[in-house]
């Protein structure tokens, strides 16, 4: 009983903290501070997963979100030297639009949750804390398994990595000859566009 009560209190505490953090991501004027707040939101969500009994997800959340994505964002902030930049206050129409859309979404979705059959059947509901079940369903090629999306998402990561590398590479200097390979100087045949080759 006490354990349950502690769980409940912890849940609401973590939820409230996560909301405060999310608010500061949305309203902070400093990029780096917002990034730290974002890390807070994501880490607190991981805490929620532990409370919900999904320890494995909590670990993945910390590893990928906090350890990966936030670090990437911080890198981007550093690379663009914008950590000291003070974001301008948004214009009034923009702020009103954002507040309006956010509020409409919030009111609609909360109304939905409290008036829909989600409420029924919560008794005994429990996150399967069985990591084995997740692993099995990721690699099972029967009707209960998800091996196909598992393979597709590996293609997605590969494609995103290739695309990201190509577009993030330096642009060849204007004096450098045309090369379809990107940055490497081309061989003789490709040093000039066709018009000049024809004239030559």
């Amino acid at each position, binding site marked *: 009983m006490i354990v349950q009560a502690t769980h409940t209190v912890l849940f609401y505490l973590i939820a409230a903290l996560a909301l405060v953090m999310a608010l500061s991501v949305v309203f902070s004027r400093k990029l780096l501070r917002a990034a730290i707040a974002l890390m807070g939101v994501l880490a607190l969500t991981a805490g929620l997963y532990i409370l919900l009994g999904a320890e494995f997800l909590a670990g993945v959340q910390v590893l990928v979100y906090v350890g990966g*994505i936030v670090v990437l964002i911080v890198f981007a902030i550093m690379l663009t030297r914008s950590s000291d930049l003070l974001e301008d206050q948004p214009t009034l129409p923009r702020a009103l639009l*954002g507040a309006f859309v956010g509020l409409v979404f919030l009111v609609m979705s909360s109304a939905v949750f409290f008036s829909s059959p989600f409420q029924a059947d919560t008794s005994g*509901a429990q996150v399967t804390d069985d990591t084995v079940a*997740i692993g099995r369903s990721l690699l099972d090629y029967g009707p209960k398994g998800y091996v196909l999306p598992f393979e597709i998402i590996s293609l997605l990561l590969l494609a995103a990595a290739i695309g990201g590398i190509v577009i993030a590479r330096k642009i060849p200097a204007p004096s450098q000859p045309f090369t379809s390979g990107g940055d490497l100087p081309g061989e003789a045949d490709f040093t000039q566009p066709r018009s000049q080759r024809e004239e030559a």
Partner: protein
Amino acid sequence: MASVPMEHALVLAAVLFALGLAGLLVRRNIIFMLMCLEIMFNAAGLAFVAAGARWAQADGQVMFMMILTVAAAEVAVGLALLLGFYHHFKTLDADAAEGMRG
């Protein structure tokens, strides 16, 4: 866990999603926009885990892992593009991009 009604987790997800959505519309700095998108994806993942818990299935958690990976891929490509944008415009203000008008 039964002590935390599932719809409360869903409402938390909805509030986080709404905050991210509002921030995406309000912000002009592209890094802020990407961070707001991350909050939205995180909220959607939370909703999936909560929904999976309601049905006591592993499917919600499998989907959570997919969402996580997709968010990572998206932010990787987004940040690569952002660096290119910064290189050209020397700013991260989305409104600075006025190259195309019709």
